């Protein structure tokens, strides 16, 4: 088995998918790959079926909200793991808040089902093709997505607490 490291993995992905790979960098020893939405499923499928990489495990999937980034407000982070090579890396996809849609990963990993439901619930990201995209943790009729940054944690009507004195 050929040795696989971050550099080889990053270069192979860039070579295979060309300019649809937006950036590849290493932070704290982990590869962060930012790609276009259109190649996310083909990319993960390619990595999963690749002879050498054999990325067989989806560790986690979550959303992040960056309200200041114009047209790149929402991001979906896939954290993948190849048991054979013991290499772990993240794939990031940025989505505009006006059209938060991305193809589902449930076609490749059954475990993505609830992770995507949770991400949908928290951030309103719609996973196209998901078999059962419903709210999972909160009440069924909740009509907003609580982890978006515009929703403060503290009840806005509360007056007995002033955080500004604490630098918060």
């Amino acid at each position, binding site marked *: 088995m050929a040795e696989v490291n971050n550099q080889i993995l990053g270069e192979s992905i860039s070579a295979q998918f060309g300019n649809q790979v937006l950036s590849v960098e290493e932070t704290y020893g982990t590869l962060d790959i930012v790609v276009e939405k259109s190649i996310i499923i083909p990319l993960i499928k390619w990595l999963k079926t690749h002879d050498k990489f054999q990325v067989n495990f989806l560790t986690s999937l979550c959303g992040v909200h960056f309200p200041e980034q114009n047209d790149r407000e929402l991001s979906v982070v896939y954290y993948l793991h190849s048991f054979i090579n*013991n290499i772990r890396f993240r794939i990031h996809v940025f989505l505009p808040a006006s059209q938060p849609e991305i193809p589902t990963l449930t076609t490749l990993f059954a475990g993505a089902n609830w992770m995507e439901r949770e991400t949908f619930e928290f951030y309103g990201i719609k996973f196209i093709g998901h078999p059962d995209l419903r709210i999972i943790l909160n009440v069924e009729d909740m009509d907003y997505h609580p982890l978006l940054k515009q929703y403060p944690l503290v009840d806005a009507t509360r007056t007995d607490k002033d955080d500004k004195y604490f*630098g918060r």
Partner: protein
Amino acid sequence: MINISDDNFEKHKALNGQEQSDQELKQYNYLNLGPTHPATHGIFQNILKMDGEVIVDAQPTIGYIHRAFEKLAENRPFYQITTITDRLNYCSSPINNIGWHLTVEKLLGVKTPKRLDYLRVIIMELARIADHIICNSVVAVDTGALTGFLYVFQWREKIYEIYEEICGARLTTNIGRIGGFERDFSEKVFAKINNLLTELPAALSEFEKLVMRNRIFMDRTVNVGGITGERALEYSFTGPNLRAAGVDYDVRVMTPYCSYEDFDFTIPVGSSGDTYDRFCVRQEEMWQSISIIKQALKNLPKGDFHADVPEFYLPPKEEVYNTMEGLIWHFKIVMGEINVPKGQVYQSVEGGNGELGFYLVSDGGRQPYRLHIRRPCFIYYQAYPEMIKGSMLSDAILTMSSMNVIAGELDA
């Protein structure tokens, strides 16, 4: 338990588009198992579609104790998030606490002394034993064997006494700080650990003698609620449930933390991924944990019990009262006025149920910008309907308890 109508079940959008053509011929019953059913050990609801006593399909509803930890974490200083992690898998809180400390330490680039690593390993392995004692003895209770449960459960109590000696708390421990432990372990702690190590093996063997080769227990658990290794990987299983299906993935070995590479231990694996295999894997892991603790005590290095992180590790009280710098750090830490570096890290630990991961995005502020917690329970519980399809109702209960689904971790 109440019967509910077909309509109600359809409202819950059951079944993955399964054809209902034989419905005219067959009348199914719908059974509401939970949310508060004594046999599920927590708040889980499953609407079961039953053909007689055989389960045709299940529709789980979760979130009954959802507390929005990820949102809470975005509004708290780093050291206050430790108390949130207590409430994930509350059967092994110290593992969650230390996992979180390790995450922040990774972001800060802290180098921990060996002694601290070994002390943390001791505590985490004690927590693993406590976690597995609960799970396995409760599996036995669900098959009707209450005696074994009573034999081993007092040892969980002894482990809680060790926690208490170290940090003052028992269940939601909030053990240690970012950077290390509050104080070095006292002689009393080591005495209690040694006492546990000499007496727990006898209790564990007794429990195994009672249960492991017991005809009734084996009939109830062998080939019940099984899953293949391939399916388990598809479902992102981790921990004892994955290892019972034959995949030897363990975070302690694959991505070692806290000097786990210094220890010699084996990773038990099962073959069929059924309830019995899960039970046996957990049982063997307890023996391995005992061995790890023994090695850690034997090779315990001299040195510091905390790393040098003045920004996060509270100074000793003499310094706070007598020096300006100590007072300033104390104030800044308690008020959460410390900025951290910008970046993103993922740190995982092998929790009682599997890979507990913290994905932390920091924008350089005083709180996490985003904290995603990879909760093993949440991820593997989605395979539950698949695992109980075609089995009896009583098997479904056993499957759930042997998967060790902890409501706090499931719902976060």
